[in-house]
C-alpha cells in the first residue's frame, strides 16, 4: 500500500515540470500565438459566440486597419494560426500518450530500487561480521605499527641532532682553517708564519674560509654552543652594543685563553703594578692581526652585505678583556697612590694609541667607562688635586719661577710671562687632555670644577706672594706676579671660546636647569653665551690685576709728587717774560719731576708686558693731569713769563715723555693743556673772553667762544677761575 502511495505521487511531480515547460514554450512565441491560444480556449468553452465574433473583428481591425491593400496579410495570418493549431494538437497527443509510459517506468524503477535495497541489506550482515572479525585480527598489527612510528620519531630526533653535530663540525672545520692560516698571529712566530703561510694560503684554503665564514655568519649563536662572557655590572654604564659576530668570536677564543692565562691567573705576568704589560700585549695583538682582518675577512663581510667592520669588532672583543681585567684590578689598588697614578697614566696612553692608531670609535666600550665608575673616579679626582697642588708648590718654589723662559728672545716675549704661570697653564692644559675623552658630561664637569679650584688656589698663592712684595711694588717679582695674573686671565678668556668648553657650558646649563641651582638671570646669561664657565675666575683675576696696577700707579704717583714739591713752589708770579729771556729753557725745579717720571716709566716698560704697561701709564697720566692742574696751576698765580714757562715745560718736556707710547700725548693731559691755553692768551683775547663769560653767564652759555679758543673740556667756571689767576691785566687807569 505504501508503494502504491509512492507511485501515485511520482506522476504528479513528473507532470508539473512538463506543464512548466509548455508554459515557457508558449511564452517564447509571439503575441499572435497567445491570442490564438486564448481564442482556442474560448472556442473550447462553446459559449459566448457573440463575444468571440467581437474579438475576431477587433483583432482584424488591429492587424489590418483601414487599408485595403493590407488584406493580403490575412493569408499569412491564417497559415500561422494553422501551424500553431497543429502544434497544439501534437502536444496534446504526446502528453496523452507519454505520461502513462513515464509513470510506469517510474514505478518499475521504484520496485527495482526496493529489491536492490533489500539485497544490500541482506549483504550488510555478513559484511559487518566479516569487518568485526578483520578488526580483531588487525589489532596486534596496529600495536606493532605504533611502536614502529615511535621509533621513526626517535630517528628523526637523532637526525636533527646529527645536523647540529654537522654544524658543530663546521665550526671545527673553521678552526682547522684558522689553524692552517696559523691563527692567531703571535709575534714570536711571525717570521715562521710568514714563511709557512705562503704555501698554506692557497686559494682553496681561502675559498673554504669564505664558505665557512658565510655559513657561520648566518648561524645564530646559541648560549649552549659558545658561552659569552658575563656582562660587566651596571655601574660601569657601558654603551649597549650587540654581541660580537660568531666567527669573530671563534677567532677571539685563542687570544682570550692566552690573555686569561697570562694576566688573570697565577702567572708572573699578572702583576698589579705593571698594567702596561697587558695594554702593550693587546695593542700588539690588534696591530699584528689588522692586516689579515682588513685584507681577508672584510671582503667576505662586504660580499655578504654585512655592516660589520671586522677589525673594529676584533678590537672590541679584545678591549672587553681589558675592561674585565681593569674592573677586577682597580679595587685592589685604589689606596696606593703610585700604583693608581701609574694605572691611570697607562690607561690614558692606551686609549690614545687605540683611538689614534687603530681608529677605535668612541661610541664603543672603552677603559674610560671603567675609570668613570664612581669610586674610581672620585679617587682619580682626589689624586689629581693632590698632585696638582704638589706641582704648584714645586713650580712656585723653583729658582726660575719668576723669570720668563723667553727673556733672551725679546721679539717673541710679548707677555713677559714668568715660568710659574706658563707651567701652571701647561698643567691645566694637560689635565684637560686627560679628561677630554670621558664618556659623560657630568664627569667632565667634575673635572672642570677641579680645574676652577686649582685656578683659584693659584690665584690665592699669587695674592700671598704679592702681599709679601707689597713694600716694593715696582720690583721685579711684583711685576712678574702682575704679568702672571694678566696671562692667566687672558688664557682663560681664550679657552672660554673653545668648542670643548662651550659644550661643557651647554651641559652645565642643562644640569643647572634641572636642579634649579642658579637664578633665571644667570641661566639666561649662560644660555645666551654672554658669560662662560670661567667668568668667575676671570673676574677675580681681573680684580686682582686692577688692584695691583692701582698700587703701582699710586706708588709712582707718590714718588712723582715728592719730586714735584720744588716745582709746585716755583715763582710763577715773578718769572721773566719771554721777550726778556734769550732762550726758553726747562725750569730747574722741574728736573727732578721729569727724571723720576722717566726712570719709572722706563723701568715698568721693561718689566710689564705691553697691554699692562698701556693700562699703567694711562692711569698714571690721568692722576698726574689732575694733580698738575689742581696742585700747581690752581694753587698759584701767573704773570706773562710764568705762563709761558709753564706751557714750555708741559708741551716741550712733559708731553714728549709719553710720545713713545702714543702719537698725541697731549690729548691725555686735557686739563693741563687747556689751562695753559687760557693762561697764555693775549691780553686782548683774554679781556674779550672775560667779558663774554661775564655776559654769557647772565643769558647764553659761552661754549662757542671757549671752543673757538681751544677749550673743550674745562667748564665755564673753571675758565673764569683761571682767568683770575692771571696777573698781567692792564691797569684800568691806562
Amino acid at each position, binding site marked *: 500500500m505504501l508503494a502504491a502511495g509512492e507511485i501515485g505521487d511520482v506522476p504528479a511531480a513528473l507532470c508539473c515540470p512538463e506543464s512548466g515547460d509548455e508554459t515557457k514554450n508558449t511564452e517564447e512565441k509571439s503575441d499572435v500565438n497567445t491570442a490564438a491560444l486564448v481564442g482556442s480556449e474560448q472556442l473550447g468553452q462553446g459559449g459566448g459566440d457573440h463575444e468571440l465574433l467581437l474579438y475576431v473583428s477587433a483583432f482584424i481591425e488591429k492587424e489590418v486597419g483601414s487599408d485595403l491593400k493590407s488584406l493580403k496579410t490575412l493569408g499569412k495570418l491564417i497559415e500561422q494560426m494553422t501551424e500553431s493549431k497543429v502544434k497544439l494538437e501534437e502536444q496534446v497527443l504526446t502528453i496523452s500518450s507519454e505520461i502513462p509510459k513515464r509513470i510506469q517506468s517510474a514505478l518499475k524503477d521504484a520496485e527495482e530500487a526496493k529489491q536492490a535495497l533489500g539485497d544490500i541489506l541482506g549483504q550488510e550482515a555478513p559484511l559487518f561480521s566479516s569487518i568485526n572479525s578483520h578488526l580483531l585480527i588487525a589489532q596486534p598489527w596496529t600495536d606493532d605499527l605504533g611502536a614502529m612510528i615511535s621509533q621513526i620519531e626517535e630517528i628523526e630526533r637523532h637526525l636533527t641532532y646529527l645536523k647540529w653535530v654537522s654544524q658543530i663540525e663546521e665550526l671545527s672545520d673553521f678552526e682547522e682553517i684558522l689553524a692552517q692560516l696559523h691563527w692567531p698571529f*703571535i709575534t*714570536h712566530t711571525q717570521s715562521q708564519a710568514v714563511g709557512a703561510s705562503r704555501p698554506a694560503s692557497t686559494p682553496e684554503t681561502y675559498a673554504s674560509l669564505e664558505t665557512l665564514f658565510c655559513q657561520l655568519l648566518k648561524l645564530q649563536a646559541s648560549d649552549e654552543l659558545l658561552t659569552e*662572557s*658575563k656582562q660587566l655590572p651596571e655601574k660601569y654604564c657601558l654603551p649597549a652594543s650587540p654581541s660580537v659576530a660568531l666567527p669573530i668570536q671563534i677567532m677571539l677564543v685563542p687570544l*682570550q*685563553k*692566552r690573555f*686569561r*692565562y*697570562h694576566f*688573570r*691567573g*697565577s702567572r*708572573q*705576568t*699578572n702583576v*698589579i*703594578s*705593571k698594567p*702596561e*704589560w697587558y695594554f*702593550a*700585549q693587546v695593542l700588539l695583538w690588534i696591530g699584528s692581526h689588522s692586516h689579515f682582518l682588513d685584507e681577508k675577512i672584510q671582503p667576505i663581510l662586504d660580499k655578504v652585505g654585512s655592516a660589520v667592520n671586522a677589525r673594529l669588532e676584533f678590537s672590541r672583543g679584545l678591549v672587553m678583556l681589558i675592561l*674585565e681585567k681593569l*674592573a*677586577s684590578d682597580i*679595587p*685592589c689598588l685604589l689606596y696606593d*697612590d*703610585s700604583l693608581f*697614578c*701609574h694605572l691611570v*697614566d697607562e690607561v*690614558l696612553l692606551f686609549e690614545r694609541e687605540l683611538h689614534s692608531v687603530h681608529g677605535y670609535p668612541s661610541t664603543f666600550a672603552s677603559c674610560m667607562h671603567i675609570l668613570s665608575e664612581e669610586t674610581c673616579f672620585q679617587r682619580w679626582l682626589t*689624586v*689629581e688635586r693632590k*698632585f696638582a697642588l*704638589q*706641582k704648584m708648590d*714645586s713650580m712656585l718654589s723653583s729658582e726660575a719661577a719668576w723669570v720668563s*723662559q*723667553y727673556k*733672551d*728672545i725679546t721679539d*717673541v*716675549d*710679548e*707677555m713677559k*710671562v714668568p715660568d710659574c704661570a706658563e*707651567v701652571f*697653564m*701647561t*698643567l691645566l*692644559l*694637560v689635565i684637560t*687632555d686627560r679628561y677630554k675623552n670621558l664618556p659623560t658630561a657630568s664627569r667632565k664637569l667634575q673635572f672642570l670644577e677641579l680645574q676652577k679650584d686649582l685656578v683659584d688656589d693659584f690665584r690665592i698663592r699669587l695674592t700671598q706672594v704679592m702681599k709679601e712684595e707689597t713694600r716694593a711694588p715696582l720690583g721685579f717679582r711684583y711685576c712678574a706676579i702682575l704679568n702672571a695674573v694678566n*696671562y692667566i686671565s*687672558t*688664557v682663560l678668556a*681664550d679657552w672660554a671660546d673653545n668648542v670643548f668648553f662651550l659644550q661643557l657650558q651647554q651641559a652645565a646649563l642643562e644640569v643647572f636647569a634641572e636642579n634649579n641651582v642658579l637664578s633665571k638671570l644667570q641661566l639666561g646669561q649662560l644660555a645666551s653665551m654672554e658669560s662662560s664657565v670661567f667668568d668667575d675666575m676671570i673676574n677675580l683675576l681681573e680684580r686682582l690685576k686692577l688692584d695691583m696696577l692701582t698700587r703701582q700707579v699710586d706708588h709712582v704717583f707718590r714718588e712723582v709728587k715728592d719730586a714735584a714739591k720744588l716745582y709746585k713752589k716755583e715763582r710763577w708770579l715773578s718769572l721773566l717774560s719771554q721777550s726778556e729771556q734769550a732762550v726758553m729753557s726747562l725750569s730747574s725745579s722741574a728736573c727732578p719731576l721729569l727724571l723720576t717720571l722717566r726712570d719709572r716709566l722706563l723701568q715698568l716698560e721693561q718689566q710689564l708686558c705691553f697691554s699692562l704697561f698701556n693700562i699703567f701709564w694711562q692711569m698714571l697720566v690721568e692722576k698726574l693731569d689732575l694733580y698738575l692742574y689742581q696742585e700747581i696751576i690752581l694753587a698759584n698765580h701767573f704773570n706773562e713769563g710764568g705762563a709761558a714757562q709753564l706751557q714750555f715745560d708741559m708741551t716741550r718736556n712733559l708731553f714728549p715723555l709719553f710720545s713713545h707710547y702714543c702719537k698725541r700725548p697731549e690729548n691725555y693731559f686735557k686739563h693741563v693743556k687747556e689751562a695753559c691755553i687760557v693762561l697764555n692768551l693775549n691780553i686782548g683775547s683774554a679781556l674779550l673772553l672775560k667779558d663774554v663769560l661775564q655776559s654769557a653767564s647772565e643769558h647764553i652759555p659761552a661754549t662757542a667762544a671757549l671752543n673757538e679758543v681751544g677749550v673743550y673740556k674745562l667748564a665755564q667756571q673753571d675758565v673764569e677761575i683761571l682767568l683770575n689767576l692771571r696777573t698781567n691785566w692792564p691797569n684800568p687807569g691806562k
Partner: protein
Amino acid sequence: MAVDITLLFRASVKTVKTRNKALGVAVGGGADGSRDELFRRSPRPKGDFSSRAREVISHIGKLRDFLLEHRKEYINAYSHTMSEYGRMTDTERDQIDQDAQIFMRTCKDAIQQLRTEAHKEIHSQQVKEHRTAVLDFVEDYLKRVCKLYSEQRAIRVKRVVDKKRLSKLEPEPHTKRKEPASEKSSHNASQDSEEKPAAEDLPEKPLAESQPELGTWGDGKGEDELSPEEIQMFEQENQRLIGEMNSLFDEVRQIEGKVVEISRLQEIFTEKVLQQETEIDSIHQLVVGATENIKEGNEDIREAIKNNAGFRVWILFFLVMCSFSLLFLDWYDS
C-alpha cells in the same frame, strides 16, 4: 802803463795754456792708468769668487729670514692663547730642524771649499787677505744665524720636556726615585730564586680571592679548557713575554734617562759654545795684535840688519886703509 798791462796779460794767458796742457796730459795719463788697472783687475777667478761668496751670503740670509719669519710659531710661545688655525704642527717643526741643519752644513762646506780654493790659487798678498777677510765675515754671519737657531731650538726642547714632565699623573721626582729601586729589587728578586716568585704569588692569591667571582670563574674555566699542549705552549709564551716586557721597560727607562742627560748636556754645551765664542773673539784680537807686532818686529830686524851691514863696511874700509898705509910706509923706508 797800458803796454805793460797788455804784456802781463799775454804772459798770464800763455801760462794758463801751458798749465791746461799739463793738466790735460796728466788727466789723460791717469785715466789710461786706471783703465789699465781696471783691465788688469778683472780676471775670471775674482769674479767667480765674488759671485760664489755673494751666493753663499744670500743663502745664509734666506735661512735667517726664514727662521725669523717662523720664529714665533716654531717656539710656540703662549700656545695656550693661540687658536688652532695658525699653529704649526710638530711635524713641521721637525722638518724645519732637519732642513735648517742640512742648510747650515751645506753653507759651512761651501765656505770651506771657497777657503781652500782661495788658499790654492796664486794671487797677491792683498787679494789673499781680502778673500780671507770676506770668508771670515761670511763665516761669522753663519755663526750668528746658527746661534739664532740654537736658541729657539733649546727653548723648544725645554718646553717639550716641561710638558712631558707635567703630563704624567705621578708624584714629584723625589717620590719617583723610590719606585725604580723597589722595582729593581722586585725584578732581581724574581730573577734570583724561584721561592720568591712563589712568595710573591702568595699575596696575589688573597687578591684573587678578594676579586669578584668573575675572575675566579674565568680563571677556572680558562684553565679547565686548556689542554696540556696548550698549557705548555702558553707557559713558553709566558716566559718569553716576561723577558720581553722586562727588557722593554728597562730600555724605556734607559732611554728616558739618556734623553734627560742629553737635554742637560745640550744646555751645558750651549753655554760652553757661547763662552768659547767670547774667548775666540778675544783670541782673534790677540792674534791680530800679535800679527801686527810681528810685522813691526820684522821691520825692526831689517833696520838692524841694515845698520849691521853699514858697520861691517866701515870696518872693512878701515882694514883696507891700514893695509895700504903699511904698504906705503914699507915703500917709503926702502
